């Protein structure tokens, strides 16, 4: 076993990664202040909603759900960026994962907390939310959500924390303030071989565990809709469809975050074009998968031509939601496929544009799944109209602000790129990968 203690002694090459923590500039405080202000506005809007009731939103009968549920599904979807991608990359021993995993995991933890709050924002009586614990019924898909989201949140927080320990210890040893916080969080890490063994084993257990939990989360969210009898929702494909969409939007969010913070903190040496090219390929693959699922979903509905199903279908394809529907198809399929297929030159701008398109497109997808089904009731009611109110827009913005704020604050206290994993890569990867490669190759060539 290689002794890996170069963290404390020796030349420290990764100073750039600690810059945001050790050399915080004034802009940081301005940004945090501005974000806090915006966040407080959103909190005020929520207080307004609690005081007057859900009437301050644009929801009505039959449009019983609106932005809050759309954003709930959207944010939880984004959270799949993280843990799932990082776990899959770790599991498949993709060496290029090293500068990416941390950011992915941070996205998950923060967005999950925000997304998980959305159903509570949506409640008419948030003061009674404890009824879910004291009088909950596990047969309701909403309770499945409560269970799986809390499991996912716990697992992904732990999965963020454990690979963070060596970096926290590094900051502790470099005297980062507040000292007690880093000493407390470092759990006595000294980088001994035994400690490394324990850490590696824990990460291995977690990454295997986190994948089924992540899949279950978005499957269960889709079940909220597919367990009802409503046209456009009652579909067996919804579980995997939502999971694919979640990973898709998650990679989009991850790419945007990577490109932004690469620029802001000058991580160009760590996040290279190749990382974006590889993740771009993954995004392209998910785009094709998304198209496949969407196509299957709508073709089945169209071919059967069941009247209620068709009401929703036409509402989306040529009716009032057609602009959103076709914008979604463009954002989720045409833009990323064209840009990502030909990304040899200007890789990063092309990846950025497609990632943003995908995020918008996936948000539209959630909107298109939820609203048209509610608008077109089974009976001969007038078609429902949903116009989100200022409060709903405000809380949407508040959710995004909370995400950015959380991310910025994290960057102040912890490195956004795993220092020890980069070091480990530098010290061991070349040897490991060479050895691994030799094991793939036919034996006789070695003697040649």
């Amino acid at each position, binding site marked *: 076993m290689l002794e890996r203690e170069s963290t404390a002694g020796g030349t420290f090459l990764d100073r750039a990664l600690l810059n945001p923590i050790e050399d915080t500039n004034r802009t940081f405080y301005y940004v945090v202040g501005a974000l806090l202000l915006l966040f407080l506005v959103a909190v005020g809007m929520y207080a307004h909603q609690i005081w007057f009731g859900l009437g301050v939103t644009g929801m009505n009968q039959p449009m019983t759900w609106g932005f809050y549920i759309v954003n709930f599904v959207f944010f939880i979807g984004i959270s799949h960026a993280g843990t799932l991608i990082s776990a899959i990359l770790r599991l498949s021993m993709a060496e290029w994962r090293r500068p990416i995993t941390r950011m992915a995991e941070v996205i998950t933890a923060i967005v999950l907390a925000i997304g998980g709050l959305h159903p509570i924002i949506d*409640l008419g009586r948030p003061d009674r939310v404890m009824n*879910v614990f004291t009088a909950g019924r596990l047969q309701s898909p909403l309770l499945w959500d409560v269970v799986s989201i809390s499991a996912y949140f716990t697992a992904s927080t732990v999965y963020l924390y454990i690979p963070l320990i060596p970096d926290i210890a590094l900051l502790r040893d470099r005297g980062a303030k507040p000292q007690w916080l880093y000493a407390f969080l470092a759990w006595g890490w000294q980088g001994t071989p035994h400690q490394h063994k324990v850490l590696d084993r824990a990460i291995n257990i977690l990454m295997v565990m986190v994948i089924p939990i992540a899949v279950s989360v978005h499957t269960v969210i889709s079940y909220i809709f597919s367990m009802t009898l409503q046209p456009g929702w009652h579909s067996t494909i919804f579980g995997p469809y939502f999971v694919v969409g979640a990973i898709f939007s998650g990679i989009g969010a991850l790419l945007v975050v990577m490109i932004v913070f690469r620029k802001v903190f000058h991580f160009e040496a760590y996040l290279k074009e190749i990382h974006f090219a590889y993740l771009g390929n993954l995004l392209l693959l998910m785009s094709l998968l998304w198209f496949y699922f969407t196509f299957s979903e709508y073709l089945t509905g169209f071919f059967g031509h069941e009247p209620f199903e068709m009401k929703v279908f036409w509402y989306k394809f040529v009716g009032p939601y057609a602009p959103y529907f076709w914008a979604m198809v463009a954002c989720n399929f045409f833009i990323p496929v064209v840009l990502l297929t030909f990304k040899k030159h200007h890789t990063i701008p092309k990846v950025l544009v497609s990632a943003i398109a995908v995020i918008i497109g996936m948000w539209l997808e959630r909107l298109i799944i939820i609203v048209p089904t509610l608008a077109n009731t089974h009976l001969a009611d007038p078609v429902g109209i949903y116009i989100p109110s200022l409060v709903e827009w405000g809380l949407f913005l508040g959710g995004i602000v909370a995400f950015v704020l959380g991310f910025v604050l994290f960057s102040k206290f912890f490195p956004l790129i795993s220092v020890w994993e980069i070091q480990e890569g530098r010290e061991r990867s070349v040897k490991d990968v060479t050895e691994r490669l030799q094991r793939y190759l036919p034996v006789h060539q070695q003697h040649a």
Partner: protein
Amino acid sequence: MTRWGMVIDLDKCTGCGACIIACKEENNVPYVSADEAGQGRALSWMTIVSEVVGEYPNVRGKYVPRLCMHCDNPPCTKVCPVRATYLSDEGIVAQIYPRCIGCRYCMAACPYTVKVFNWYEPEWTEGMDRVHNPDVSLRTKGVVEKCTFCHHRLQKAREKVRLEGRDFVDGEYTTACADVCPTKAIMFGNLEDPNSQVSHLARSTRAFRLLEDLGTEPKVYYLAEGEKNA
């Protein structure tokens, strides 16, 4: 065995809307402003779905009074996370207002869209706020409500029946909408009692239920139009 149910004769219904008003007064259903009602926030446990049938010039209006169907296989009670709505032993789909957390999942799951939500703190016009029905609890903002088959009337009737030590007489327990209907288009009673009016009518060839193929087994039967003209 008791299974309370309703039969609505569409041949007799004139679409007058008396049932809507009677229900509102009986059950302390809050009023909303015309503005809010226009936004789809009207609170009404009973509505009349009106439809224009046919092609011009052979058109006619069709009125279907719609209330909670009190399904035997209710899609709404299955999804409630806190059991604020459930199917009672006598077949009434009940709401527990003090337990409802206002997630509105039951509204989204109901194929008949008969559930309504208190978007604001309930309000009544001047004067009407002093004449609430004392038998029906008032709701707060943020909870879901709907038709209960005038459950408070059942409680009263049951008490009387128990004291006198006998069985329910057909028509002894009836809902406000059935009471008030000027053409007696709405009939209410025990579907399990073979001699009751509703069980006779529910077995007639004209009887049908809304969205029967969803398998929700509603207990509100309709008698198809056209019998009188045939």
